[in-house]
Structures are given as structure tokens and as C-alpha cells.
């Protein structure tokens, strides 16, 4: 995503083509030093770029390939998105920037004069926190999503990409390599139905049990899970959690392949899979509804593919949206978001169901009617209160991240102090400046406390109040703030929300109260009631960074407090944001109206602000689900009856902490365990099963399938009430299919005689529907009695010999294997490539070594196998024996000589 700041004119402040020479904005190189904080950056001080290490002055240009945070000493932090390039200079008016390429965030550290040249003009950056992209400058305070990339540089998260941890039957731990990631998106209103296919590869000789963990993007709703079982993608079902776990554990010892997906914590989910066979792939597909993000230039679909802690390369990565390819990479290095601009979108959607009318509305207040806040004080005094009760034990890392982010967001003139508390409150000392040393000291002090005990919020408020009073006494002009990081649930002392709210009012005065809720809190209603600033429930480092940025600008932006919503009689309303609504934020309302009720305009009140939201609603899918997702969260937050949560979860197909996704091996297995099927995921294609005669009953693809002479089955998806379904076979025989209620298909089986030559054959199917309409269909299958041949190369590597084998498809095999209609007049080489997925049919390649050991080579891609024979160098010629098998179970054995 490249953007250029438009050049002004030569001789002024422009970089790039000006008679072929570049000039420095402002005329002079930077006198202030530039150093890198995170990532990798290059600087140009003369005629060439060099890696930025340490501190450098005289910088005229910055660029980064992968993203970086750079500090201009005493001036600003500059966050560069991957691929960004910035011209730097200065003159008597201060620091000048020109964004040559990409997206940049400029966050002033103080009041040093600075400006950016953009779109023919100069925009002041003094004291501001802005994002510059696409020729525009937007304030981070009101467009926090535009700065998301900057949060990621500081705090990359693994949102969107999962990781598979494994263990063997003997308990040895490991991980599986992710070899392919394929993302398919389909717009649905203002959401994108996202399907992410993960392909993992077990290259070991051991059978593994896998735990697949993945975080969902913020606001996403998990809607489905599927797993490849014997070549067929089985869709999972949402089941009550205890039952799902019981079923999983009951059958995990058998030959079946169940999978169990549970909500672990926050927005992290865990999928258990067993077994993952040696030398084989495991394909898992996750489906979720992803909300669009507000970027600098409008709404965006973002697929976040950053993956710290995982392998550095994926064999394949692809992203498609509405059928169009966005990314299609081989040997891809994770590290960037995939961002697709989506333009403008309707903001109101409706879905009508038997159980209600559901509305999703995005409300953007008319901020012009909201009074601007007074200019914020020059200096912030922040009291950080960190909950150290038992319930935040599992979120210690996130808590530390939140503290670090908040403190990093302070300017040099600001001051902070840290209090920690559970049943007791510990005072961290006087307010100090946010230096590297003081921040480290604060973090160390927090880390030294083992979270334990209950939470006494009342005592915490009292202690904070004392701190704030002391701060007021020192300098009444300072901006006072309380930032609370904890689970928000009082479990000791005063616990009633009303009383705590009153205490907060008394103790905090006009100090802004921000809260970041982390941990396994049961009820944060008390804190929600007290918050006068920003409220967030961050689940990732990126989200805490966003929160920290938001609170840094809280005083600068307009806000609406104590918002009331009226959506009519009988309406159940949920909102995307609790607490105050700040300029730059949108409020999403999810409304359920009684069945048959027509949506009416929604009234929004916040103090003296009033807005009527019209309901020009666009029908869309998943609106009910979005409401239900909020309903489930609300039920869980208030500790509602577990059954009510389960019922809602199952009725709407949204996950809760009391329901899990379960994938079983077959439709019969679901029936056995009395699990109703809502997500069969069947296609309407005719199928030939047993096409390779190795697993009749498993569906195969509709294109020519590979089989040797034998007796495959034909499955035809015609309605149960069809009058007749007849198949005319290539042998001239006709067979009448019978309807099988258990399968929901018409089936028959037929014989492919031994003497049938290799080639592609067509079956014609005639369906006479209940009303007399005749439907004709055709399905092809491929008879293949030719074993695959390979070209094998063997080379010495450390510890052994690397074996690589590539299947060769001869012209003759191609001619036999392709339909005659395709061959006529076509270039055979082109056809071989086009139909590689049919012709390249090798399935297994095994090796026997001279000492009698055997192993299978890994199928690294279609028709290519690789493996390592671990052995010292041979001292004389030895023969390796290979056996190759294809999908039709044709086998070929051959020997390859290894020479010293």
C-alpha cells in the first residue's frame, strides 16, 4: 500500500524527482539524533542508506521494509509501517517531514515545532499524535484504528494465525509447522465472513496429539469449525461444553478423529486434535465473522497475519475476498497485515427471523453538536493502580504490557506513580518522570508480586484518592488521571457498585478514571459504573497499546457520557462500547425486537445531546448472531443461569464459555451421540465414492476420480421425493438408484470391469423430479492402472542423505488421463499443468534402506516428496528401495543407487 505525499515544488520542501536530485525538507538535515526503538530502519545521511544503529544525526531520510519505531530525540516517536519512507529535515520553523511512501504515525513527545508537507500544504504536527497516509493527516485520538499498525510494531500479536503445539503418546512436546494458510472472505453487510484454512504438517515418525491455539480478531464472532478427516472436510457442531468434552474423551481412544474447540480465555481458543498421523497433513478450517476496521481512508477489511514465535516462513499464503485474489504467495514471510479498503458501507442492517427482528446499527454522533472539551492541561499526572488479586494471575503478562504501554505513552513532562493492591494496597512512592529507569523499576516492582487474595476496590479508591490529593496540592493545573488495570471485580470490603461509585466520586474528584479490564473477572459492573474516561477489555498486546494511546488523548477529544438508548417497547439492546463514547469512536447497537415488530427509529440521549437514528435498514445475514454474541457476553458477565447461556449460544450458533465446537468423524457419530446437525456442509455434487477403492463411503471430488477396476458407489443428491434416479454407465448398463435417508442421497454401486482400459469415463444421470421435471447430469471418473514414476535425486547433507522425488507424468499418461474433449487441439504441456491435480496422483512414497529400516517420505507438495535418510556417509554403493503408490493404489517399486 504505497502512498505518496504530493510534491510541492522544487526548491522548497520536496523530496524526489526534481530534476533528478533530492532536496531536504526545510533545507537542513536533522540536528537532533535519531535512534530506533523497535524494528529495523535505515537512514540516509548522505547519498546512501545505512542501517540505523545507535543514534545518528544528519538524517535526511528514513525507511523501513518491515516496520519500525524511531525516536527523534526530544521531538517525537515516528512509527513507520512496513515499506514506509519519510523525508526528514529542519529549518528555523522546526522539524519538517514528507511522507514519500507508506503510512506513518507521528507522536509528539513534547512541544517541539514540527510539520508535515502534504497535499500542497503544510500541516502542523506540534504536540500532536497523528497518522499520515494517503495524503491525509488524521488524529490518532479520533482515529485509533488508523494507528493499529503502530501498536503492532510495538506489540505484535498473533491475531488471526494459530499455532499447533503437540505431544507424542509418551509426552514429548513439540510443534507442528504450518505449511499453508488460505483465507477466504465474503462480504456480508459490514462484516466479512472469513474462513481460514490452516494446513499443518507432521514431519515426524510419531503420531501426535495437537493443541491448536489461535486468537480471534477483536469483535470477531466464531461461527464454525471444520477439520479434514480422511480427505473430507467435516463440519463441527456447537455443543454444550461438558457434553462436548465427554464425547471427545470417550471416543478419543478409538480409531475416530474427533476435534474439540473450547474457549480458553480472552479471545484465545484452543482446539484439541488426535491423532495427527506421522508424515501427514492436518487441515483445520476456522470460520468467523470479522468486523471491518476504520482505517485512515475509510473502512477496511484487515486480515492480521503477524505471527511472532512461529516459523518465519510459510510455504503458501493466500487471501481472497469475494472470489478475487488479494494475496497469493509462496514461501511467504509473515509480518504484515493484509488490508483491503472497502469504501463506504451502510450502517444499519436487519435480519428477520421467527424468534425476532434483529437490528445492527452503527451510530456516529454529530460531534459538531457536542461541546468541545477545554484545552487539556500541559502535564498529566497518572496514578496507575494495578490489581494484584488472584484473578489476574493468568494475565500477568498482559497486565505488564498494559502498564508498560500506559507509561510509554507519557511525555517527558508527565508524571506517574504506581499503586498495587489486592486486600492490601501498596504505595509505589512519589510521582516520578517516565524515564526508562523509572518505568523499569515500576515493572519490576509489579513483577515481584505474586497475584493472590481478593480485591478490595474500596481501599484502592481510598489510596488513589490520597495520591491525587497530594498531586493537587503540588500543582493544581496538572491533569489528574487514574488508570486501573485489573479484573474490575470487588471481592473484599465494600462490593456494592453504588457505594463504590459514590466513593469514587468523592475520592477522585474530577480526575479521569480509565479502566483496562484483564483477568477472569466475574463482574466488572462496578468499575464500568465508575469510569469517566476510557474503558477497554484488551485481550492482546496490541489492544493494550491502543488503550494506552486512547487514554493519552482522552482530554483532547469530545465525549458523550451516560448514554441512554431507546429502541422501542420490548427491545433488548446491547452496545459495543460500555461507558463513555469518545469522538472518533462509533457505537454499535444490537437490538432484538419481538417477532414481527417493525424497527422504529432509535433514540440516543447523553446529557443534553439527543440524536434520532433513522432505520433505513439493509437486510443482511448474521445480524441475529451479532446480537446473540453480545447477549451471551452480557449473560456471562452478570453470572446468569448457565442453562440460559447455553440455550442462547446453541440457538444462535455463537460460542460461549459453556459451549464448544465438536468435530466428529461421520454423520453417524453425531447421531450416536445425539448431537443435532445444523452444519453438515454438504455440497450438491454427485460423488463417486471409493474412487480409489480404499475407503468407500468417503466422498471424493467430482472431477475424474482415480480408481482401478472394482465396484465404486455413486451418490446423487436428488430430492427424496424424486420419482426416479437412473444412471447410465459407460459399460452400457443402466442402474436405478435408491434413496438412502441416512445419507440424504440416492445411491447405487456398479462394477468397473477388469478389462476397462485406462481413461476417463462418463456416467449420465437422469433425475425425474416429483413434479415431472427431468434433470440430466454427468459425472466423470478416471480408470487408472498405471503406477506413478518418479525422478529421484539424493544428495549428502549433514547427518545423512536428502532424498527428493518428483513424480513424472508422461505424455501418454496425460493422454490417457484427460477427457478427449480437452485433448483436441490443445497443447499437452499446458494441459498437464492445468490438470496437474488429476494427473499427479502419487499418494505415498516409502523407502527401505540396506539395514532394513523403512520410512515414508513427506509429501511436500503435489507429486513431490522429500525426506532425509539419517546415516553416516556410505563407503560403497548401496541400493535404496522405493515403493510408490498412487490414489488408485497402483504401486511401483524401484531401486536407486547411492554412491560414496
Amino acid at each position, binding site marked *: 500500500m504505497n502512498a505518496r505525499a504530493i510534491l510541492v515544488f522544487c526548491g522548497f520542501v520536496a523530496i524526489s524527482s526534481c530534476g533528478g536530485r533530492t532536496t531536504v525538507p526545510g533545507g537542513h538535515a536533522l540536528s537532533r539524533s535519531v535512534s530506533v526503538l523497535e524494528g529495523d530502519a535505515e537512514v540516509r545521511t548522505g547519498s546512501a542508506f545505512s542501517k540505523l544503529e545507535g543514534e545518528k544525526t544528519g538524517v535526511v531520510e528514513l525507511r523501513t521494509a518491515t516496520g519500525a519505531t524511531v525516536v527523534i530525540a526530544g521531538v517525537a516517536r515516528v512509527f513507520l509501517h512496513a515499506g514506509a519512507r519519510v523525508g526528514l529535515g529542519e529549518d528555523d520553523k522546526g522539524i519538517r517531514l514528507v511522507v514519500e511512501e507508506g503510512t506513518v504515525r507521528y507522536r509528539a513527545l513534547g512541544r517541539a515545532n514540527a510539520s508535515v508537507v502534504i497535499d500542497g500544504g503544510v500541516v502542523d504536527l506540534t504536540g500532536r499524535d497523528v497518522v499520515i497516509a494517503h495524503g491525509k493527516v488524521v488524529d490518532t485520538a479520533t482515529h485509533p484504528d488508523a494507528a493499529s499498525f503502530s501498536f503492532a510494531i510495538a506489540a505484535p500479536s498473533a491475531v488471526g494465525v494459530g499455532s499447533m503445539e503437540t505431544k507424542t503418546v509418551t509426552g514429548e512436546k513439540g510443534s507442528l509447522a504450518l505449511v499453508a494458510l488460505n483465507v477466504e472472505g465474503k462480504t456480508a453487510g459490514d462484516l466479512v465472513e472469513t474462513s481460514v484454512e490452516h494446513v499443518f504438517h507432521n514431519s515426524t515418525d510419531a*503420531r501426535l496429539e495437537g493443541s491448536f491455539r489461535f486468537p480471534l480478531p477483536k469483535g470477531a464472532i466464531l461461527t464454525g469449525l471444520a477439520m479434514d478427516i*480422511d480427505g473430507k472436510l467435516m463440519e463441527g457442531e456447537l455443543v454444550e461444553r461438558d457434553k462436548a468434552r465427554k464425547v471427545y474423551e470417550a471416543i478419543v*481412544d*478409538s*480409531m*475416530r478423529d474427533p476435534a474439540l474447540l473450547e474457549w480458553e480465555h480472552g479471545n484465545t481458543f484452543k482446539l484439541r486434535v488426535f*491423532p495427527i*498421523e506421522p508424515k501427514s497433513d492436518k487441515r483445520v478450517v476456522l470460520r468467523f465473522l470479522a468486523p471491518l476496521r476504520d482505517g485512515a481512508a475509510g473502512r477496511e477489511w484487515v486480515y492480521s497475519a503477524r505471527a511472532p514465535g512461529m516459523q518465519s516462513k510459510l510455504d503458501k499464503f493466500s487471501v481472497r475476498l469475494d472470489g478475487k485474489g488479494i494475496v497469493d504467495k509462496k514461501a511467504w514471510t509473515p509480518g504484515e497485515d493484509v488490508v483491503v479498503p472497502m469504501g463506504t458501507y451502510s450502517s444499519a442492517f436487519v435480519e428477520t427471523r421467527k424468534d425476532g427482528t434483529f437490528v445492527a446499527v452503527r451510530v456516529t454522533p454529530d460531534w459538531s453538536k457536542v461541546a468541545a472539551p477545554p484545552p487539556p492541561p500541559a502535564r498529566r499526572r497518572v496514578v496507575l493502580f494495578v490489581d494484584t488479586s488472584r484473578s489476574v494471575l493468568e494475565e500477568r503478562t498482559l497486565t505488564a504490557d498494559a502498564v508498560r504501554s500506559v507509561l510509554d505513552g507519557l511525555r517527558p513532562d508527565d508524571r506517574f506513580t504506581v499503586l498495587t493492591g489486592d486486600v492490601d494496597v501498596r504505595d509505589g512512592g512519589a510521582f516520578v518522570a517516565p524515564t526508562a529507569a523509572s518505568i523499569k523499576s515500576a515493572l519490576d516492582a509489579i513483577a515481584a508480586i505474586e497475584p493472590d487474595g481478593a480485591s478490595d476496590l474500596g481501599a484502592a479508591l481510598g489510596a488513589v484518592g490520597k495520591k491525587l490529593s497530594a498531586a493537587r496540592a503540588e500543582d493544581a493545573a496538572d491533569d489528574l488521571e487514574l488508570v486501573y488495570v485489573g479484573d474490575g471485580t470487588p471481592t473484599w470490603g465494600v462490593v456494592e457498585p453504588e457505594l463504590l461509585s459514590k466513593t469514587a466520586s468523592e475520592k477522585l474528584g474530577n480526575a479521569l478514571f480509565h479502566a483496562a479490564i484483564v483477568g477472569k473477572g466475574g463482574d466488572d459492573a462496578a468499575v464500568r459504573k465508575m469510569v469517566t474516561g476510557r474503558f477497554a477489555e484488551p485481550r492482546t498486546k496490541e489492544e493494550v497499546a491502543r488503550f494506552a494511546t486512547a487514554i493519552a488523548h482522552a482530554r483532547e477529544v469530545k465525549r458523550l457520557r451516560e448514554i441512554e438508548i431507546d429502541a422501542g417497547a420490548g427491545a433488548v439492546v446491547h452496545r459495543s462500547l460500555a461507558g463513555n463514547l469518545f469522538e472518533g469512536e462509533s457505537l454499535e447497537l444490537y437490538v432484538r425486537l419481538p417477532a414481527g415488530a417493525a424497527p422504529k427509529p432509535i433514540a440516543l440521549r447523553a446529557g443534553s445531546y439527543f440524536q434520532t437514528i433513522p432505520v433505513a435498514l439493509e437486510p443482511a445475514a448474521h445480524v441475529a448472531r451479532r446480537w446473540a454474541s453480545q447477549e451471551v457476553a452480557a449473560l456471562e458477565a452478570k453470572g446468569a443461569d448457565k442453562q440460559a447461556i447455553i440455550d442462547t449460544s446453541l440457538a444462535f450458533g455463537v460460542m460461549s464459555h459453556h459451549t464448544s465446537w465438536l468435530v466428529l*468423524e*461421520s454423520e*453417524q*457419530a453425531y*447421531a*450416536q451421540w445425539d448431537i443435532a446437525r445444523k452444519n453438515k456442509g454438504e455440497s450438491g455434487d454427485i460423488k463417486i465414492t*471409493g474412487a480409489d*477403492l*480404499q*475407503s*468407500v*463411503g*468417503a466422498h471424493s471430488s467430482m472431477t475424474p476420480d482415480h480408481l*482401478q*477396476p472394482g*465396484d465404486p*458407489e455413486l451418490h446423487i443428491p436428488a430430492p427424496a421425493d424424486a*420419482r*426416479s434416479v*437412473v444412471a*447410465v454407465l459407460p*459399460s*452400457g448398463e*443402466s442402474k*436405478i438408484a435408491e434413496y*438412502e435417508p*441416512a445419507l440424504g442421497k440416492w445411491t*447405487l*454401486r456398479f*462394477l468397473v*470391469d*477388469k478389462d476397462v482400459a485406462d481413461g476417463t469415463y462418463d456416467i*449420465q444421470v*437422469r433425475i*425425474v423430479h416429483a413434479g415431472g421435471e*427431468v434433470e*440430466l447430469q454427468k459425472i466423470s471418473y478416471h480408470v487408472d*492402472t498405471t503406477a506413478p514414476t518418479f525422478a529421484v535425486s539424493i544428495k549428502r547433507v549433514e547427518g545423512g542423505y536428502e532424498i527428493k522425488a518428483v513424480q513424472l507424468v508422461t505424455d501418454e499418461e496425460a493422454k490417457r488421463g484427460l477427457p*478427449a474433449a480437452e485433448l483436441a487441439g490443445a497443447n499437452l504441456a499446458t494441459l498437464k499443468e492445468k490438470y496437474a491435480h488429476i494427473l499427479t496422483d502419487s499418494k*505415498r512414497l*516409502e*523407502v*527401505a534402506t540396506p539395514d*532394513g529400516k*523403512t520410512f515414508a517420505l513427506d509429501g511436500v507438495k503435489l507429486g513431490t516428496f522429500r525426506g532425509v535418510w539419517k546415516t553416516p556417509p556410505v563407503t560403497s554403493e548401496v541400493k535404496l*528401495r522405493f*515403493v510408490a*503408490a498412487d490414489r488408485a*493404489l497402483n*504401486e511401483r*517399486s524401484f531401486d536407486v543407487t547411492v554412491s560414496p
Partner: protein
Amino acid sequence: MKTWPLVLLLLPRLAAAAEVHTSINDVRACTVTPQGITLATSGGVAKLTKDGKVEKVLTALDGLPDGRALALSGSWVGTERGAYDLASKRVVGAAPVRAILETSNETYFATWGKGVLKLSGGEVPFASPTPLRLRVSSLAMHNGALVAGTAGGTVKFTDGKLAPFGPTSATFALATLGDRLYVGGLEGLVSIANGVPRSESDADVRALIASNNEVLAATFGAGVLRVGKTVTTANAVPFAQALGNGCIGTAEGVLVGAQRFATGGLPSPDIASIALDGAKLYVGTFDRGLVVLEGGAFRRIEGVDKQINALAIGHGAVWAGTARGLYRLKGSVVTRFAEAEGLPSADVHALVALGDRVLVGTSKGAALVGANVEPLGKKQGVTGDAVWAVAEHAGELWLGTNAGLFIGKPGKPFRRLSKLTGELNDDWITALAFHGDRAFVGSYSGGVTELTKTFAATRLGGGYINPDGLRVLDGKLHAATMDGLLVHEGTFRRVDKGVLGADVTAVMSSPKGMIVATRRGLTIGF
């Protein structure tokens, strides 16, 4: 409707104990003469009296090139492997003959795959032969020219060759009435006169006959049509596939006038598996269900899926492995086992009765079925998916899979013998048999391998061994293969006596002699 049960057929020219059992219900062609009714069926050529009593059934044992008869004309029979003259015993061609047309100076044979043959020799040339056009299913003369209905449309003899003419979709049936040609196929019935086509019906027409100045069409799904009208016969005939003078052939017998003649014997000649329980012979067919031969009559067993793959007798019960589950028949009680009961898959390929359990091979692994179901598979290191052969030998279980042979005991890792390890020459194991301490391992296309106690291997050959197709009878290894019945006496030799078809699916011994099951029926005591 009057149904005449078929009496057990005993062919007088054979040994008194020898029995031939086939099925003549699937009628592909029929003719009615004053002498009686002749049927071409998938189980042979049947001669019936006028009142439907079976006089004789001719099979491959009587010289037919193949027991599946597809066409009739005069003394000619079109079979799956060529045409046969009952009078002269002459054989023409080797491809399936689906229609025969006798004219005043030539006899034409419609073959499936080899075009149109002439009795006088050679083939009728095609102007533009394609694989589809060479699959001929019907013949007629129209305005003095030969017309052939093929899988690639209709062709007519013009300028010395058969050239495309009329409909281009698959044609099953032809008839002429006056100067109008009637062409019937999957997409309906069309008639052509003076080159102008006229749509007559959208029914799936399988046979046509011009008789009494009208054209009758046998259809799949719409009964028998009188072109321009629908005939309602006394017996509803939704699926009619053949028409003769005065007879209608269906898959469930023949109608002559208002009478249907059908047998109560084997529901199909295509036999997949057999099992002997005392005097009862259980016969499982490919897709027409399970029957039992007892006291000279066949009785259908209800409650079992029709696609039988394997049969076994054990623990006072009959076990049927089908494509849709394992069935236990004990008295009148039928119990089904599938995934819900713990089987790895409902698609059962193989069965053997053990001490107190039954060992079952399915498309997704094996299992021991007794008081409960104990799966055997990946946990024991059995890496093959489908299990096609099962046995117990010397205290160990033997599982023949598509990835080799696995031998072991439940709860412990199985040993694998395969092509890779050198003992076998084909990993797709279909059959197992034992004699003393020798094991015989049959494979899909690699023949039989003999293994000693120490797994030293000897290749015996034998070709394509059918599932459960190995038996040691009278000390000799017999192999049921796709190329006939073989017996090993130092080397394999083919046995033709008493073998009804080339694709032999089972062989076993009985008090009455050897039972040989094929896809064309079974014989006992040859």
C-alpha cells in the same frame, strides 16, 4: 397378477448332484412364439412354456460365450462376450452384443465398443467413428438403410458408411413404422420422417417395437407407452427395458399379456459372497440382497442391506458384512452394527468368526465384535485404511489392508509385511488362507504369495484375487479371481468346469461338492 415361482433347476445332462443357480428376472430381450417364451437375461437364456414354466436356462456351461444375454433374434443370442447362434453354436465377435438385426441378406450385430459387425464378416464402416459412436445399442432399417443407435447419437448408412443422422444424444432404441423412424434414448423419443424430426415424448426410452401398426416404447419410469398415448397395463411397469412381440421385459421378470412371470430364486446372478451353515447356503449378492438356499428353494432374508460384501457363520449366527453395516442374524432377530456401535466404518469388507468374537474388516480399520466392539487400527500401528481381508492364524490376527499385511495381537503393535519390506509384491491384500504353517496372501493384482512360518515368501502368481477368494480345498489352494477359478498344483491352472463366469467371487467346499460363485451365478457339486 400371476406369479410362477421358479423350480430349482437341475440340468439333466450334468451329474445328478450338480446344481446351477442363476437368476433370470432381469430380462433384456424377449420373444413369444407359439412354442413358448424365450428370454435373454443377465443370468442366461431362459426358455419358458407359454404359461411361464421354466423349461431350461442356458448359461456359459451350455456354450454361451457369456451368461449375460442381452439380445435375441431368431436363433441368435447377443451376450456380453459376443453373439452366439444356438443352432450352429457359432460365435461372432467378443464385445457385448446389444442388438441383432436380421435382414434378407445380412445379419448385423450391434456391439458395445466395436461398432456394427456383419455376419458375412467384418464391420460396417463409420464415417467418423468416435468411442461413443462405436458403442452401439440398437439397429433398424429405415427406408432401406441401416440405422444404428449409439451412445453418441444415431447414425445411418449413407454413401457406404454409418454417418451421424438424427439425434446426437445417447440412443438406446430404434423402430420404424412406415417411413417414420423412431429414436428413443435418455433424453426422450423423437420420430423422423423426410428428415423432419418430431418430439414424441420426454420419457427415458429403452426399447421400441413397431407392432400392429403402432409403436410401443418401453421406458424407465413411465411405463410402456403407445406412442401418442400412455398404456396402462394390468401390472404397473414403471421400469420396462425390453419389448418383444407380446412381451415386456423388466428387471423383475417378464410380462406376457397381463401375466408377469418372475422367479423366486436368486435375486441376481451377481454373487459377492457365500457361507454354508449346515445344509443352508447363504448367498449374498452384489446389490440385490441376501438369500438362503434351503431345501432346494431360495428365501430372501429381510432387514439386511442389499449390498453384501462378506458372509460368515459363527456363534450360532449368520454375519453379513455390507456396505452399510455389519448384520448379525440370530433366529429371526437381526442386529446391525455400524459406527454408532463402535465400528470404524459401516462399510464392511471382510469377516471371519473367531473363538468368541467376529473379526471385521472395514473401509476404516478392523474391529473385534463380541460383547463389545474393540477397534483395531492406528493404535496398533496398522497404517492402512481399508481392511479387505481378515483371519486368525497361530493365535495372531491377520489384517490384509491396502498398505500391506499386518499381523499381531490386540493391544500390541502389529508387524507389517509389505512390498517395501519385500515379502509381498502388492500391498493391496484381498484374501488370506492357511494350510498347516503356510499362509497364502492374495492381492488385488499381484496374485498370491505363499509365506512360511518365518515369512519367507514365494510368489505363486494368480492375477487378480477377489476379496476372500482363497481357499485350501482338498489340500490344494483354490483362487477365485477376476480371470476365473484357479487351482494351484505346482502352478496355477484354470478350472472351467462348473464355472458360470470369468469373474469368480467365491469358492468353498460343501457336502455336495465344490461351490463356485461368480458374477453370473453359482454352481454346486461340479
